[in-house]
């Protein structure tokens, strides 16, 4: 287990360095970024001064190395448009995104498991057919369009849910104000319903199909037949024998999916004017606010890698064979 963790951490550092390099290259690929920070009427001398002040006159590799060195000290630079530390701005928008992502993630799992199990147990019937088809449909709907349709129907027509806005839960909680956090919770969830559903649709559909196929595979195994032959009730067979083993591929997939979910959050946040990291990043990219983009990107990638590591460890715990084979390598 220790070797596995160490390997994953080392990999993570390499990947994060790669991510910083890619984002650095992307933002310099459009030419000298100095022109973003001077007015159109600036004289060449003024431009040169600004370029020097911002450090854009140095060779690219020097700029990148100094950036990484700052990063290692926890300094992500100062936002060019907000004039505040970039990390603070990104961290400020992060709780809202976590709330959205976790909520969507929860929908995608809690709804997918019973649907997938029901489909598998009724294989070949109309129930199975409908669930499978709905799964395919869910994977074919752009999540932002899902958001627009939810806004049109549940927001504007039925007026059941708010079409934008956000009530913080994590921020008061992190500040130690438990009473406010709990008081906010019902409204937090209420505001999360529509963006959460929009973000979750794709993952929900994919998880359902995954649970179904995984269950089908397990239900055909000898030990399930043995369990049935022993006269165990169907419920015990399904929950204790089949589902327990059907978990494994689901857990792996679900971990990978969180990254996909975070990607979807960017667009969906824009649809719902949701004050999270996705909308912040999108605005920062448009303003070429390099430090904010870098901080946001690294934070998102770091989260994704962290989650994958956790998923690996959970996987090893759920399936003892995994940790043995990997640990000995």
């Amino acid at each position, binding site marked *: 287990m220790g070797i596995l963790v160490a390997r994953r951490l080392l990999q993570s550092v390499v990947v994060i360095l790669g*991510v910083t390099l*890619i984002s650095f290259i992307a933002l310099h690929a459009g030419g000298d970024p100095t022109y973003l920070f001077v007015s159109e009427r600036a004289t060449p001398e003024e431009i040169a001064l600004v370029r020097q002040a911002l450090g854009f006159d140095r060779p690219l590799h020097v700029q990148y190395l100094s950036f990484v060195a700052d990063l290692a000290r926890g300094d992500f630079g100062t936002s060019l448009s907000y004039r505040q530390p970039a990390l603070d701005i990104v961290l400020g928008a992060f709780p809202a995104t976590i709330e959205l992502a976790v909520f969507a993630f929860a929908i995608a799992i809690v709804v997918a498991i019973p649907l997938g199990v029901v489909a598998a147990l009724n294989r070949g019937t109309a129930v199975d057919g409908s669930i499978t088809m709905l799964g*395919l449909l869910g994977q074919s709907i752009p999540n932002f*369009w899902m958001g627009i349709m939810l806004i049109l129907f549940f927001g504007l027509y039925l007026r059941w849910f708010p079409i934008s806005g956000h009530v913080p839960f994590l921020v008061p909680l992190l500040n130690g104000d438990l009473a406010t956090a709990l008081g906010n919770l019902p409204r937090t969830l209420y505001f999360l319903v529509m963006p959460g559903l929009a973000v979750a649709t794709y993952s929900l559909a994919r998880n359902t199909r995954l649970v179904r196929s995984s269950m089908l595979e397990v239900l055909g195994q000898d030990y399930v037949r043995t369990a049935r032959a022993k006269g165990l009730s169907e419920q015990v067979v399904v929950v204790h024998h089949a589902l327990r083993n059907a978990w494994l591929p689901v857990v792996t997939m679900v971990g990978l999916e969180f990254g996909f979910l975070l990607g979807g959050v960017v*667009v969906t946040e824009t649809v719902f004017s949701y004050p999270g990291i996705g909308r912040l990043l999108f605005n920062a990219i448009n303003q070429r606010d390099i430090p904010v983009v870098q901080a946001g990107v690294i934070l998102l*990638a770091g989260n994704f890698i962290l989650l994958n590591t956790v998923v690996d460890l959970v996987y090893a715990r759920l399936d003892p064979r995994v940790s043995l084979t990997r640990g000995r390598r």
Partner: protein
Amino acid sequence: MNLRPDPGRAWRSMVRAKWPLLAVAILAVVVVVAAFGPWLAPLDPERQSIASRLSPPGTTGPQGITHWLGSDVLGRDVLSRLLYGARISLLVGLAAIMVGGTLGTLAGLVSGYFGGWVDDVTMRLGDMQLAFPFVLLAIMFLVVLGPGVGNLVLVLGIGQWVTYARIVRAETLALREKEFVEAARALGDSTTTILFRTILPNTVAPLTVIASFNVASVILTEAALSFLGLGVPASVPTWGSMLAESRDTLLANKWWLAVFPGVAIMLTVLSFNIIGDWLRDALDPRLRERQ
């Protein structure tokens, strides 16, 4: 195991499954629309008309022109724009698959056949790319490079190479040790010949399956990027940019501007997904386990 595609068996299984037939029919319509949109469209998609702006579907305007699917904020005909938009969506999707598929297949072949550090570097690069939500990367590059069909295809294509590289690499690794590859080597065939004439044809079945799922996801991403204003230039009607424009009139409940382009995207993507599903079962049952 014989993995070569068998058209006869494929056709029979398609007729049996029914859904793929419907999907093929929908896609055929989309392809015809994409190819002949300009001739099919009732109106010029750029033709503006202040008099008939924001007319609901089925309204006949003052000049006796019927907007079957309504008109937008500038009085442009939604149906005509939808028909023109099919071309860009399909074109971008297929072109991106060509770019990503070619890059990925080459990388996978070389990686799998030669192994060693080439393999390590390629696969770690792939891991790195997958360790990062692709939409963010695409947004970053498109903001810098500027919108345009070429840039969009390039970015979306680069986003797909890893999938192909992994599949082709795995196949190549297995095929490399097979007798017929050894025989080709013993006969003195060049490495290029072995890679492209001996190994590549045997990876076609899994590649086809991946590609059809991939077109679906690329079309979804293209729509998302166009929705954010990063796709093709604003003057070109695409399904994604039509949805982006619909946002401004959403609160005024002009639902037709948001519903129809979305339905078009959904049906197209759904068709590709259904065909991918069916192809996977028909061509290469082994892939089912790997997905």
